[in-house]
């Protein structure tokens, strides 16, 4: 058999964005090839706490989150034939102080302005929803339609379904650069030779900037280190996704029973990880102290593992989802800044429409252009 080197669309990055978009394109009969440097879902896709959240999102990307929650997540397990463990248990964002309350109130105002069902509730009301939390919680924002899912089975579920529909995945191949032919994107140069397509989708997380640079496109994104801890399984306590205004931690109890709780030490920009997925000795203690402040009854629960990953952090904490004018044929989907998982099923619709129709017609992504960044004066 001759090795596949050309396709209608080449997707760079085998994360959830790449796998889900490959699935959507293949479903419409498009010939797709996905190139991945390491394993499927090795970046942020399998290294996040599984939030499917609309609250506390920037209104500019809220249409993606609201579309995904209303139209995709509830049926996704059936659609993929894999249990994505989606639970729509709501999202509480907790506050301990007056200042926290102000932060939450501002978010609630912004979100209700664009039609999201989210409101401020008192500490006692929050404890009625989730009786396990500390009396120190004085107030919270509550969004009943938020939830969480399993990022591992979701990412690999999209991958499996794409594979089933005829998509070819090549893993262990590093993209070195893109090359234009007659002004259009055409060649994807890798350490394993050249792959060719008329359309290229770049959704390689924090590797995207380096690759975009090779055709003269830049974006203000950088790698940002974050960690997560996982506890032993506990009896089912609550289905609510938890966030805190102070940013000490976020997470949920998974279907398996373990708590998956993420956070950072605040010093992560300066601790040495040498670009590896190692965990830092400062972080788990820091997250643990945060957990005890809000959920003191979890103090005797054992942590079984910790892991780390990198955000592709954009300067305005919003993704770039767009066709690149200067490089016809190139579509980008990166810069998700640590909250891409929950919107990924909707992003894949926008990306497939950008590729096939030239614009996103189902979901409004007009605020997420790649060329929105301006100097300060």
């Amino acid at each position: 058999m001759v090795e596949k080197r050309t396709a209608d669309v080449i997707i760079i990055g085998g994360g959830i964005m790449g796998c889900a978009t490959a699935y959507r394109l293949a479903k419409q009969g498009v010939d797709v090839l996905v190139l991945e440097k390491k394993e499927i879902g090795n970046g942020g896709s399998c290294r996040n706490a599984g939030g499917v959240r609309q609250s506390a999102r920037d209104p500019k990307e809220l249409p993606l989150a609201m579309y995904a929650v209303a139209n995709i997540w509830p049926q996704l397990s059936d659609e993929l034939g894999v249990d994505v463990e989606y639970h729509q248990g709501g999202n509480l964002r907790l506050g301990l102080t007056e200042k926290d309350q102000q932060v939450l109130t501002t978010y609630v105002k912004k979100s209700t302005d664009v039609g999201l069902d989210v409101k401020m509730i008192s500490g006692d009301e929050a404890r009625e929803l989730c009786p396990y939390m500390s009396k120190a919680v004085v107030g919270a924002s509550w969004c009943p339609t938020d939830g969480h899912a399993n990022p591992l089975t979701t990412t690999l579920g999209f991958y499996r379904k794409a594979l089933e529909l005829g998509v070819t995945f090549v893993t262990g191949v590093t993209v070195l650069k893109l090359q234009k032919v007659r002004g259009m994107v055409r060649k994807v140069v890798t350490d394993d030779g050249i792959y060719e397509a008329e359309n290229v989708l770049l959704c390689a997380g924090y590797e995207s900037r380096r690759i975009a640079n090779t055709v003269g496109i830049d974006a203000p994104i950088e790698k940002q280190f974050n960690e997560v801890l996982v506890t032993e399984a506990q009896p089912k306590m609550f289905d609510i996704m938890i966030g805190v205004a102070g940013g000490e931690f976020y997470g949920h109890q998974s279907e398996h029973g373990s708590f998956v709780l993420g956070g950072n030490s605040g010093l992560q920009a300066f601790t040495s990880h040498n670009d590896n997925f190692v965990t830092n000795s400062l972080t788990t203690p820091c997250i643990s102290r945060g957990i005890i402040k809000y959920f003191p009854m979890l103090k005797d629960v054992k942590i079984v593992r910790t892991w780390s990953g990198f955000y592709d952090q954009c300067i305005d904490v919003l993704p770039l989802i767009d066709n690149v004018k200067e490089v016809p044929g190139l579509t980008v989907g990166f810069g998700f800044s640590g909250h891409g998982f929950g919107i990924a099923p909707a992003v894949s619709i926008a990306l497939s429409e950008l590729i096939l129709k030239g614009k996103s017609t189902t979901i409004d992504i007009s605020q997420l252009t790649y060329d929105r960044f301006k100097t300060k004066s």
Partner: protein
Amino acid sequence: MIKVIRVAKIEPFIEKEDDGMIICRCEEITKGEIRRAVYEGMRTINEVKRYLRAGMGLCQGQTCQRLVQNIMAQELKTKPSELGMIQGRAPARPVEIDIFSNNITDVKEG
């Protein structure tokens, strides 16, 4: 990472007599589930771990890692060494949140 070209299998999945054997004891994952995950496209031990939870339990794969590798290698007709290792994770043994938090104040010196 070695290069792997992944396409869907054309031939159907064939069940085997010993598919019911439990391989990952912590998470109770069977040989049949691992074989099916490979059939469905999982090509590294970390992908199988993420897909099935094999190796995610209390022992963190210390018991089943080699067994999972061998089953995968047999299915894929490759060497176990080409499937990668489960990523090692701290802590080496489960530790309470309270101990991690450094909040314990009743430990005296001497």
